[in-house]
Every structure is written in C-alpha cells, then in structure tokens.
C-alpha cells in the first residue's frame, strides 16, 4: 500500500514530512477499514454457511426462515448479541476479563495483513510474511488464557489451560511442515512463493505436487492447523461446553461474539496460508497465459484465491461434522507421538530431495526428460 501511495502522490516526497505522515496515517486507516469490513462480512457469512453445511450433512435444513433462504440469519444474531445485557462476574479479574476478547480478535485480524490477494492487490508486502502470521496467531493462546483466568470459574480455567497446551503443542508440526514447503521457493515472502508457482498450466507447478514429501507435509499441516484453530475433532477447549464448560463460559453478548468471530477469522488465515504455500495462491489454472486486460486478470486472481480458501474452509466444516471429538490425552498423543516425528522425517526427506534435484519438482524433471 505504501508503494501505491508513493506512486499516486509521488511528488509529495518533496513536501514536508508532516503532510507525508498525515497521508500515510490516513491511508493506513482507510485500508484497515476496508480489510476489517471484509473480515467481518466474511465472518458473518461463515456462521451462516457453517449452519447450512451442518444441516446438509446431518440430513436436515439449516436456517431458512429468517431472510430469503435464511441469509439474514447472521444479521439477526449480531443485533441480538448487541442487545444482551453485559454481565461481569463479581469476583472476576475485571481488566483481564474485559481485554481478552479484544486481543483475540486483534490477533486474528492482524494476520489478514500480509496476505497477497492478487498480483497488485495487497495490504502490506512483508518479506517475512509467513513468520509474521505464525507469530501473531500465537497471541491467541495467550489471550485465551487471559480470558479463562479472568473469569474466576474453575471450568473456564480448565478449558483455558487445555487450550494453551493444545495450541502451543500444535505449533511445532505446523512450523515443521511449513518449513518442508518453504525450502523450495526459499523465501518467506508470500508474493515470491506464489510467483514461484507460476507456469505449468497453473496447476502442475504447485508446491504440493512438487515432491512426495510436500504432499505429506500438506496433510500434516492441515491436521495441525485444525487443532490450532480449535475445531472439532480438536475442540476440547471450546465445545467442552457440551461436556462441562469452555473458556468462554462467562462471556455474554458482544464479548462472546468476538471470540466466536475470531475462530472463523483464524480458519480463514490458516486456509490462506495453505492456499498460498501449497496450492498456488492466486495463480489462475489453465488460462494463465491468455492475454486479458489488467482489471479482468486482477479480479480473476482474487476470485481464484478466495475460491481456494473457501474450498479448504468447506473441508474443515466437513471434517467437523464427521468426526467425534478427541479426548485431551489422545489429542496430546497425536501431536507429540505421531505428528511431530513424522514432520521431522518429512523435513529431512524434503531437504534431501532439494539437495539431489536442485530444487526442481516432479513436473520440472518430467518435462525436462520428455519435452526438450
């Protein structure tokens, strides 16, 4: 965005620093408003889509009375949550209790920033994009513990401790499997990773098809990412409310809505990383070489990117309504005894492949053999 502003108002370079900083701040505010509205609109529709997908899989109809086909359901939910009375328990730690939902939402929303939605549409092009997203998503676990401790409720504390244990443990398979994918384009910048995957009809140079090791890395990453977001089958912290109580027991009204929306925001982020690193980001399949006007190409790229993300989110919802919930010791066993060793060996295998074939994938080798 800063380069965009420099391009548009390039001659302001020579003006006073005060005006330049004022323009930058205005640009930051406007871009935050745009990204925030996109994030909130997406999160509203995600709650509606979740109930409809759940209804389809469970052989029933989801909401269908509230608007046409139930489309206004999230509006009704949001307004109702705003109208609820705000209860803060008497013995609760007041500042921790109040701040926790804001931090969860901020951490989840701040990770929308380094994503590149298309060739020229991005908010901020960081050269450490992937590292930034993983670091910011870890703040969520701290904020959950703040909320759980501040509730002064023993079940909230259990839920919060289990949530922190789960999120911190599953960071390790995530990072290892992402490393197995990052060593191929050798860059942490989101845009460079997507540009590496261009060519080859827009499909065959995806990093997931590069290597049998990256194929395995995708499945490890996806499993660990579902655990990171606290979705079933790993939702011991939050749907423990179906057993005892979760970390958001004592939150009413809009404070609860922040936790709720942050979960869907996290789903978007995790799917966006998977789509960028493994599935080629905004590369349009099959018609990438066709000449078309710039606005059409950019729009198509944004649409393709969002489609890949929504397909992955549909897969996450599909898994939620299929599998039963894991017990907390089974969850820890899965992470430490199965996913982490496999991710280590996967990383070693991917490194050996890169060493042997000099970073070329299966498609590159085959096309070098058969098509001179």
């Amino acid at each position, binding site marked *: 965005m800063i380069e965009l502003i420099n391009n548009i108002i390039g001659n302001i370079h020579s003006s006073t620093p005060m005006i330049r900083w004022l323009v930058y701040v205005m640009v930051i505010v406007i871009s935050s408003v745009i990204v925030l509205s996109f994030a909130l609109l997406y999160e509203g529709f995600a709650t509606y889509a979740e109930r409809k997908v759940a209804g389809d899989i469970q052989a*029933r109809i*989801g909401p269908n009375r509230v608007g046409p086909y139930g489309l206004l*359901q999230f*509006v009704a939910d*949001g307004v109702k949550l705003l109208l*609820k*009375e705000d209860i803060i328990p008497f013995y609760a730690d007041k500042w921790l209790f109040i701040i926790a939902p804001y931090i969860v939402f901020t951490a989840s929303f701040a990770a929308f920033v380094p994503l590149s939605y298309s060739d020229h549409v991005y908010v901020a092009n960081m050269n450490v994009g992937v590292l930034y997203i993983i670091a910011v998503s870890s703040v969520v676990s701290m904020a959950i513990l703040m909320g759980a401790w501040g509730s002064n409720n023993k079940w909230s504390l259990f839920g919060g401790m289990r949530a922190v244990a789960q999120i911190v443990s599953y960071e390790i398979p995530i990072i290892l499997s992402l490393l197995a994918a990052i060593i191929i384009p050798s860059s942490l910048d989101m845009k460079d990773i997507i540009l590496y995957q261009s060519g080859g009809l827009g499909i065959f140079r995806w990093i997931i098809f590069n290597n049998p090791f990256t194929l395995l890395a995708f499945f490890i990453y996806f499993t660990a990412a579902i655990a990171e977001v606290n979705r079933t089958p790993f939702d011991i912290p939050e749907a423990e409310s179906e057993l005892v109580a979760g970390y*958001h027991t004592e939150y009413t009204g809009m404070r*609860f809505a922040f936790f709720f929306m942050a979960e869907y925001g996290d789903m978007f982020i995790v799917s966006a990383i998977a789509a960028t690193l493994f599935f080629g980001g905004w590369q349009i399949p099959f018609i990438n070489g066709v000449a078309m006007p710039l606005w059409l190409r950019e729009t198509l790229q944004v649409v393709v990117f969002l489609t890949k993300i929504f397909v992955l989110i549909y897969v996450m919802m599909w898994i939620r309504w299929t599998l039963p919930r894991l017990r907390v010791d089974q969850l820890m066993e899965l992470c430490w005894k199965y996913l982490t060793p496999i991710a280590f060996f996967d990383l070693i295998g991917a490194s050996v492949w890169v060493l042997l074939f000099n970073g070329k994938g299966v498609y590159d080798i085959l096309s070098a053999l058969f098509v001179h």
Partner: protein
Amino acid sequence: MGVLEDRLPENILFTTVDKFLNWSKKSSLWYMLFATACCGIELMQTGASRYDLDRFGAVFRATPRQSDLMIVAGTITHKMADRVKKLYAQMPSPKYVIAMGSCANTGGPFYKDSYAVLKGVDRIIPVDVYVPGCPPKPEALIEGIMKLQERIMEKKTLVKK
C-alpha cells in the same frame, strides 16, 4: 437497553426500529440445554433432523450466559429447584422461559403424593409460555416457540409503553 428504554415517543421511525430489534430477538433465540427427564428426549428430538429447530435460528448453547431462552423440560425436584433459580439468574436479560410438559407446568404425575417434587416451575421463575403434554409432541413444542416469537414481536423496547 439502559438509557434509551421507554422514553421515545411513538411515531413511525421509532416503532420501525422497535420492530427491527424485536425481529432480531425473535429470529435468533438461543436456548439452553436444560433437559432433566423424558421431556428432555423430546427436546433433543426437536433439535434433531426431522423437526429442525435450527430453521428458526434457534441453536443450543450449553452455558446460561450465552442463551436467552430456557426450556424447562422435565421434572424439577426440590434439590434441583435451587439450581434452576441460579441458572435463571445467570442468564442475561432479555430472557424467556418455556415450561414444557406436565411436570414443569404443575408437577405432572407427582402432583398428589410426592414430597420431593416442585409442583410447577412457575413457583420459582416467571414463565412465558406453557406447553402442555406428557411429553408434548415436537410439533407442539415448535408451536409453543412460535407463540413465544409472537409475544416477543409485541414488546415495546424503545417506545414508551
């Protein structure tokens, strides 16, 4: 609603805003999973596939802090009555109660000779809709919820009563 409640005159703008607020309250009635006895099974069936309560926007939440409808389904003993009162107090307003089945209405089959059953849940909490039956059919419970939705639409929040 605090400061704004019950203060504004009754003209077309504020009654429309009231109608919008009431529409949002009635379209997303989140009920608390409170199932004590046989009526609880009928409550679970009403949320299941054949008679779907999710069509009306009603999902179940397990904690009273996030629910605005408590469907008292089942027999309430004197030991449980204490807890029912606490759970009702923990729900944030606006809150509604539906008494489902004979046991919640008037103590049910235990009316005459039982020393341990609370004869009707409206002795401890205010009830909005009574659904009779032993147990009521899921369609009868859905009709009770629709009657509650009609009552919610008639409420005046912003406008002077």
